[in-house]
């Protein structure tokens, strides 16, 4: 995929498909450690232990519409290409955690890309799912929790276009803030 944010969107969609109603996304960019770490944790139905080894096989899928399942294998290859690590942990009935690391200065690292577009698309299409998004750049945090937003909205639907616009602006400005201090 052209951007890491697209891989992230894809992995989060897996969680939604697994019936999750709460998904945590954590992105850490650490210039001292020369590392990006992406973690997606969902509370969906989980993956049986017997299948856990197979899920990164591009020719394995639990879908019935086709015989390939590329999302996890592409994400794993992206991290390996950047000398990173990849892991999946899961418990049936509890959820799944996917974690990938990337060497930050690797020439093959795709840009993070439009993460606010990814998040607003996810929220628009799955308004009943809650997302907790935390992004750290060299320890400086940005945090967004749709549960708090929903509480403050007092009944205004989170997938209302104006709310999505607000969320997109909030993410864009929040990320610019935590990145700006690094350049100063």
């Amino acid at each position, binding site marked *: 995929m052209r951007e890491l944010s697209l891989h992230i969107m894809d992995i989060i969609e897996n969680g939604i498909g697994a019936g999750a109603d709460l998904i945590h996304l954590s992105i850490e960019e650490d210039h001292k450690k020369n590392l990006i770490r992406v973690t997606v944790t969902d509370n969906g139905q989980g993956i049986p232990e017997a299948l856990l080894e197979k899920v990164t096989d591009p020719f394995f899928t639990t879908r019935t519409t086709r015989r390939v399942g590329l999302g996890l294998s592409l994400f794993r290859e992206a991290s390996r290409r950047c000398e990173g690590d990849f892991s999946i942990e899961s418990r049936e009935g509890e959820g799944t955690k996917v974690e990938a690391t990337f060497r930050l200065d690797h020439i093959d690292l795709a840009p993070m890309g439009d993460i606010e577009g990814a998040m607003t*698309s996810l929220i*628009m299409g799955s308004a009943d799912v809650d997302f907790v998004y935390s992004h750290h750049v060299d320890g400086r945090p940005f945090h967004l929790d749709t549960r708090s937003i929903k509480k403050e909205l007092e009944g205004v639907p989170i997938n209302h276009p104006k709310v999505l616009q607000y969320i997109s602006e909030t993410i864009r400005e929040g990320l610019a803030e935590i990145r700006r201090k690094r350049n100063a």
Partner: protein
Amino acid sequence: MAKLTIEDLKKIKESTKKDTALREGGATVKITVHLGTCGIAAGGREVMDALLQEMAETERQDIRVITSGCMGMCSSEPNVTVELQGKDPVVYQLMDAKKMRQVFKRHVLLGEVQTDFALARMN
């Protein structure tokens, strides 16, 4: 455009009371954007962005947008399914932001199926 605050959003509350009821079940138009790995890799997010902008500009309150996974027609992604109440769903293929806007304005708002972009009518 002025920056929105939570206070601005709360003001929307009054005008969306009717809207909430409709979104919860009474939508007359359902738009499904297929965001499986294939759809995302092919540009599905840009299609969603265009759709979001169109949704922000329309006065209509009865349109619902949902995402789903791959439907098995990967080589024609991004696919978008438009279902008007009482009509067969239409699957559009090879969508991009520009086509999405056209489908929204012509099919979703005016009921004119854009056959040039359509892959199939499901029935």
